[in-house]
């Protein structure tokens, strides 16, 4: 009988597997580096480099001016990077403030329950049911426009979906035995929210915050483009785009193409970072 027993062959995989996880980590590293480089480059560009150069107006893309020049001869590459820098600053700020609101409300709702939870859910539904752009325009104007208006407008509209995700997670943790035991040990609701619930929310929070960013900068640019956001003297992408509208018909395509494409690329990049973090954190896809 013993001879008949076959040895089970354990499949030998390669020592280093290049799977989803490795790809995700590389993508995150790459995009994060590009992101930081743009941020640093944007902060290093001095104000006076955006000078008027009337000998060089409407130069098409060349080696000296890769993105061309505009109607006063300013280098469009510099304008685009400064614009992206401003957009990214606004995006980061809005994403962080939205995330803070989402965490506070998402945890407070289920932990305190009852009327508070009802009001928070109602607020989420209310904000979600109105088109974002409309609310941002209204809030932006109501807050006096400019940077403050944009930031408040984007923040008050972008906390909702993350709040829902966090609320669902908190409701699940709240029903776990260890949270109930903690109550019986006489721990306060605040202690439970901070020590038991919050660590479980961190993965969702990181992914959610990163994913708010592209929304925020696209909304900022579109509102500015429409003329309700940042004032025309700011070096914002939205300002560049609305300005370029005047010259598009006369064939100055580079004025809109490069700034617009960079903005879309940056948002896609950050979206990609968010999705990849999600892949790594999610247990279903983490070890593929």
């Amino acid at each position, binding site marked *: 009988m013993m001879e008949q027993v076959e040895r089970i062959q354990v499949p030998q995989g390669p020592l280093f597997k290049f799977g989803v996880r490795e790809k995700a980590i590389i993508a995150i590293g790459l995009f994060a580096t590009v992101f930081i480089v743009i941020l640093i480059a944007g902060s290093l560009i001095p104000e006076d480099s955006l000078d008027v150069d009337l000998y060089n107006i409407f130069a098409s893309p060349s080696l000296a001016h890769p993105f061309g020049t505009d109607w006063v001869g300013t280098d469009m590459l510099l304008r685009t990077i400064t614009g992206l820098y401003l957009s990214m600053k606004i995006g980061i700020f809005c994403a962080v403030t939205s995330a803070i609101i989402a965490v506070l409300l998402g945890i407070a709702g289920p932990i305190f329950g009852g009327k508070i939870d009802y009001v928070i859910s109602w607020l989420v539904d209310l904000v979600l049911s109105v088109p974002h752009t409309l609310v941002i325009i209204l809030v932006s104007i109501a807050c006096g426009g400019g940077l403050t208006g944009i930031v408040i407008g984007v923040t008050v509209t972008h906390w909702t979906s993350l709040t829902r995700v966090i609320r669902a997670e908190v409701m699940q943790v709240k029903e776990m*035995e*260890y949270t109930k*035991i903690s109550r*019986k*040990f*006489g*721990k306060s609701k605040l202690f439970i929210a901070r020590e038991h619930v919050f*660590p479980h929310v961190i993965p969702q929070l990181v992914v959610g915050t990163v994913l708010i960013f592209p929304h925020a900068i696209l909304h900022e640019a579109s509102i500015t483009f429409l003329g309700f956001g940042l004032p025309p003297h700011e070096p914002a992408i939205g300002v560049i785009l609305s300005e370029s509208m005047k010259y598009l018909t006369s064939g100055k395509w580079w004025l809109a193409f490069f700034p617009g494409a960079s903005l879309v690329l940056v948002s896609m990049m950050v979206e990609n970072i968010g999705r990849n973090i999600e892949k790594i954190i999610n247990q279903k896809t983490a070890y593929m």
Partner: protein
Amino acid sequence: MRLRAEEISFKYNNNDKYILEDIDFSIESGEVVGLLAPSGYGKTTLAKILAGYEKPTSGQVVLEGCESRNNGYAPVQLIFQHPEKAVNPKWKMRKILSEAGMPPQELIDAMGIKESWMDRWPTELSGGELQRFCCIRVLSEQTKFIIADEMTTMLDAITQAQIWNVVLTYAKKHNIGVVVISHDACLINKVCDRVVSLTGDKRDVISPHIETNQISASC
């Protein structure tokens, strides 16, 4: 001090049938009472009601000789069956152990908890090791009654013996009442002063004098 359940009835939804109906139960300080019933007879539900995790549909749980407090450390503590669900997976063991205050070192040693476990995550310990933490957490001066719901059901005999030994010694020393809920008639027969059964013709009468002889015979 006495923990008393008066005519407890319980059902999860209004339309469901009763899981527990008119249950009377009481336990004195320092007493070890066994609660015996087959699966699905509401042992765990009764445990949760006694410890205040669920509210009974009708009837009440009274703790005689103790002021009722809604907040603060509960005098009646429940030990759950599955230790891996009763600890926060995002906490290290030292934090889990000291959540209700750090137990004295001799108790930790008696429970067989090693210092090297303290800096691990719950997933890095076995069920038996985790259950030691869950048991020692409720061994406190403020605990008046312990309800052990299938506390050692999934553990091997040696670990069972060690954990029960520590819990019962502590309970005796501090005059804590222990409700032992188990399928294991041998265990109940060994550790309990008195056995109560949830079974019976009407399923709603707890006879304090169950056929103890029968249990002994089967062991």
